[in-house]
């Protein structure tokens, strides 16, 4: 945060909806705050999911890769959430319906192919989004311009694995296709308009589809043909409605902090 931003942060009035206004006054307010928090929630929740691979990945290099990606996302989440209030309170003390992450990022890791499909869909999206945010200027531009360089590595990782699994054995091909199909219904939500963001999300979908399609077809796989949302899920994560496994994710993430308030290393 620059000195200017800091003084603005100090001067900014606490937003009525802010969960932790007393601890850290949010830099943002209104729709801009809500939009930054939604993106921060995306990064936080995906970081938590990827962290579940620690010690469980198929090979040591992937253990390291997935948790490194998780760490990058956690850094983004900390910056974004800090613009909207106290990062710890926001991560550990909100209830399920107060999180506005897209449902895609909360989906369980599944087998390795499911994790890779989720990474492919999300990292291509995040790279386009951060590029647009950096060009747009505004409060999120400094983070976006920095994080987009990290996300390029995440996308590269997801692409390499999609190619390897899709164009690998019969079994890896089958599983990768199954994973792409299963998560497709959560991709539409990413492009729902997000008020206060300053970026035209629906307009990003065409390029996203082009880029994802290029990777998927090169991997001898097929882009799913079904709807990219389900009737009950369209935009739901952004409105605080989540899928079944999200509660368990939060329980694990928040347990320690809630059981021992103020605990530190």
């Amino acid at each position, binding site marked *: *945060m*620059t*000195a200017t931003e*800091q003084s603005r942060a100090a001067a900014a009035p606490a937003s009525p909806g802010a969960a932790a206004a007393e601890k850290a006054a949010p830099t943002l307010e209104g729709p801009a705050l809500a939009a930054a928090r939604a993106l921060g929630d995306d990064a936080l929740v995906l970081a938590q999911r990827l962290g579940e691979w620690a010690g469980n990945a198929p090979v040591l*290099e992937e253990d*390291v*890769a997935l948790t*490194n*990606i998780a*760490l*990058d*996302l*956690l*850094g*983004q989440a*900390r*910056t974004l959430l800090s613009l909207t209030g106290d990062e710890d309170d926001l991560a550990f003390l909100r209830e399920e319906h107060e999180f506005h992450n897209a449902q895609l990022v909360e989906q369980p890791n599944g087998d390795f192919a499911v994790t890779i499909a989720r990474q492919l869909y999300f990292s291509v999206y995040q*790279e386009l989004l951060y*590029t647009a945010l*950096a*060009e747009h200027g505004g409060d999120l*531009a*400094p*983070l976006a*311009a*920095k*994080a*987009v*360089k*990290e*996300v*390029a*590595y995440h*996308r*590269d*990782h997801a692409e390499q694995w999609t190619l390897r699994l899709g164009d690998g054995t019969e079994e890896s091909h089958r599983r990768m296709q199954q994973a792409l199909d299963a998560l497709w219904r959560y991709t539409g939500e990413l492009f729902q308009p997000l008020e206060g963001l300053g970026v035209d999300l629906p307009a990003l979908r065409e390029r996203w589809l082009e880029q994802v399609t290029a990777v998927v077809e090169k991997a001898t796989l097929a882009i799913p043909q079904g709807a990219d949302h389900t009737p009950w899920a369209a935009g739901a994560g952004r409105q605080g409605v989540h899928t079944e496994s999200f509660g368990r994710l939060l329980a694990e993430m928040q347990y320690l902090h809630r059981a021992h308030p103020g605990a530190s290393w």
Partner: protein
Amino acid sequence: MVITRTVEARAAGGLSSLEQELLRLAGAVPDPELPVVSLAELGVLRGIRVTGPGQVQVELTPTWTACPALETMAADVTAVLKDAGMSEVTVHTVLSPAWTTDAISEEGRRKLAEAGVAPPRPQTLGGTGISGPVALDLAIHCPHCGSTETRLLSRFSSTACKSLRSCKSCGEPFDHFKEV
């Protein structure tokens, strides 16, 4: 290099002799993860300003957004400046302009290679300066034997800023400071 430009700009605008001395002290603090290089050589020290008697503000930028070493850097810089007689040290984190591996000085690159970490290659950033990395074609030299016959094992390694490679000539694995 972004970093030196910031500092030089301040210097041109009148960095006091005290500020210059504090900048030198803070810049000499070793990186907590890679102690062979200093913060100045790494290019993460963005500026310094004395705001009153005993009061100084320091700007640090993280290499990677989530770099866990940043807090240690801030603590180390604070300790050094307090030892130098400053009673109130404030460290700000700045993200913009985004740090790039091009900010690592020549001396820093040489020291990294000596310590067994292949230094980053120069970036060829397109017009925006925010385009992605991953120009993996340029040869990366093995820091142990100098061979260019090296291969990527994993884009991710022991810290966020490094990838893992191995040398086909001498067989040794090594870290490579990956370009951003």
